[in-house]
């Protein structure tokens, strides 16, 4: 497909054109916080900040989504029903001739409640602009899960929305120190899941449509989107190469799954999770943590059933009615998250459940570092202890000012 070029000042017009037929979602800065929000005319897309606080997953897998509505209704008894049939446990109805017979025969001839159930599934067409290749890859990883467990159960809620979502990713020019996509087979200009890739070059974007949906976007843009010159295409390639070079590779992926398996009872899990506060921040900012809970609410006779993000750090996540909790310890829950991403999920879907975006590192209240966890627990059992020792902080290596005397010392002196 032909490589295109879009002038930077033509971007609002492109988004405006796209917004005619779809909801356009892009990163915007509000109160200093960058989040994906619906685009409105006049709002400036924020591309300088590398990563929005949360990944755009909520636009395909909303945090809270009502999928059933129901209402209890009083139903008048059918004509000729026998009044006062026993409501006891004798079960005359068993062996009757289907539900109609039950309704007419075995039930008391007084108005009784029935329930009307309606399934909801809203899936407006949408374009997500300005996500990063790692975010797009997160969708590909979630697709596997919601595509049905080994192809068994197909999730209509996620998939109907995913089918009408176009992902327009923007190449990362300045990866953060917390990025590690390349260690997981990704890249600042990764194409997995991306419908069209925008790369920022001098004065605009080099646009590569990668799928039919991406081509459709190019079609929408019309005249604003000309062919890229060779120089522009070369510049884009240079930007990509430079960015890729800036991403650290903090660990070797090879063997991590097996080592996590071998280290399952390693006391190192306890040491690593000491500073975990068991909140759900990492899972809620993650581009592919997908666990959810289902709850009902009923007000008088009308109610709804909704699913809402849940997280494996929630102590009540696995707690059973009896009070027994299979993962009662913080260390169990901590282990579950990392093992899920690098062992359980790979076993099922032959891929990873992590894109290396580093959001969990940036937003964890105590900055728990998934790279450190993998370096230690993803190492061969014997080596785990050794690596734990070497990951102890070495201020010299980072040129840290922590070595510098704190001002309090100055005053004391």
């Amino acid at each position: 497909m032909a490589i295109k070029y879009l002038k930077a000042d033509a971007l609002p017009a492109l988004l405006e054109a796209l917004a005619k037929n779809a909801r356009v979602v892009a990163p915007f800065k509000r109160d200093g916080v960058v989040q994906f929000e619906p685009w409105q005319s006049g709002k400036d897309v924020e591309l300088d900040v590398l990563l929005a606080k949360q990944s755009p997953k909520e636009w395909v897998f909303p945090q809270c989504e009502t999928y059933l509505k129901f209402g209890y209704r009083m139903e008048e008894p059918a004509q000729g029903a026998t009044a006062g049939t026993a409501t006891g446990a004798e079960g005359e109805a068993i062996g009757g001739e289907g539900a109609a017979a039950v309704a007419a025969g075995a039930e008391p001839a007084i108005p009784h409640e029935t329930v009307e159930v309606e399934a909801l599934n809203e899936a407006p067409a949408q374009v997500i602009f300005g996500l990063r290749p790692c975010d797009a890859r997160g969708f590909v990883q979630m697709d596997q899960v919601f595509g049905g467990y080994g192809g068994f159960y197909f999730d209509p809620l996620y998939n109907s929305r995913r089918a009408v979502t176009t992902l327009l990713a923007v190449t990362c020019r300045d990866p953060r120190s917390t990025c590690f996509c390349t260690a997981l087979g990704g890249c600042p200009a990764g194409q997995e899941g991306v419908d069209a890739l925008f790369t920022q070059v001098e004065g605009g974007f080099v646009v590569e449509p990668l799928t039919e949906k991406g081509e459709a976007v190019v079609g929408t843009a019309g005249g604003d989107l000309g062919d890229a010159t060779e120089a522009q295409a070369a510049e884009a390639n240079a930007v990509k190469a430079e960015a890729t070079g800036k991403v650290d590779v903090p660990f070797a992926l090879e063997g991590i799954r097996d080592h996590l398996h071998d280290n399952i009872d390693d006391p190192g899990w306890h040491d690593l999770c000491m500073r975990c506060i068991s909140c759900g921040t990492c899972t809620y900012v993650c581009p592919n943590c997908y666990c959810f809970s289902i709850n009902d609410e009923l007000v008088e006779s009308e109610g709804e059933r909704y699913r809402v993000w849940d997280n494996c750090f929630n102590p009540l996540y696995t707690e059973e009615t009896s009070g027994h909790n299979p993962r009662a310890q913080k260390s169990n829950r901590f282990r579950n998250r990392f093992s899920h991403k690098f062992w359980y999920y790979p076993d099922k879907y032959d891929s990873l459940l992590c894109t290396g975006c580093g959001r969990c590192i940036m937003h964890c209240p105590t900055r728990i570092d998934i790279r450190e966890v993998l370096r230690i627990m993803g190492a061969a059992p014997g080596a785990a202890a050794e690596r734990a020792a070497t990951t102890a902080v070495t201020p010299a290596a980072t040129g840290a000012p922590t070595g510098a005397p704190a001002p309090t010392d100055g005053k004391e002196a």
Partner: protein
Amino acid sequence: MSRQDHIREFAAKALTEGRVDYFIGWKQGHNASEVVPAFVKEAAAVDQLVWNELCHHNLVTFLKRNMPDPAGAKIGVCVKGCDSRTLVALLQEELIDRDRLYVVGVPCDGIIDRRRLEKEFADEIVAVSCSDGRVSVATRKGNEKEFAKEEVLLDACTRCRYPNAVYADDVAGPPVPEPDRDGAKPDWSDVAGYESLSDDEKQATLEKVYSACVRCFACIHVCPVCVCWDKCVNRSRQPELVEQKVGTKQKLLFQMIHMFHVAGRCPSCGACDRACPVEIPLYLLHRKMNKEIYDMFGFEPGTKLDEKPVFQLFDVNDRFGD
């Protein structure tokens, strides 16, 4: 000897003597702009402990119910002035066992608000250092900037009344000068702006600010005085005080539940505020609550070991109501 050296020395001594199973302090995070809680189990490892203007974590969090690992461990902990007040609040209610604690007070003259620094750059901050009242910040792309320390302090620090620990077994170096607490009432000027809004504006503001909440429970779990964290009524279905749905109603009620449940124990340490991944200014409403509590009782939470939180006591001579 610097405070940092004192901390290391106290930690090494306590670990060597077997007074504690592990010692909680601060260490450098994944780069030189972050400090994270450190859990030291061996005297040989105390050199990772640091003390500087980035040590914002309230380590008392790691003492509350279900946090010690193994349960019943003897723990050494570093506390700043504000942290020590949360510790005292827990001790007042006998929610932690004083005999299993070894507390090192760290006199503090202000912690940097890293979020405020982040707002100054589009780029990632990789190093923050502080000397002689100047804070220098370096970013990944090589931008550097210097700030006056008082400009980038946490709000809580600019009005601090307890810079020294109110309860400690040992103190890391000489105390910093105490403000005149008897002569001067607390400074509540930070909430004046909010107070001056009309009821409608307040409601609109709250709705706007709290609608960002993702209900990740970071504020509740990081709160040192929020002790029923794994049995929290915010998550309970029986009774169901707040729905698990994620709407503005539920988010607001969720935050109010947190606020009222720590009334009388919360010294506005600001840990919730700093933990919030979507940067909701939780601290401010807690300050407002504390202002009212101060007006009602002249009470500052967590300042005296022999007090009880005001809502666990009563006085027949209270003059409330009609």
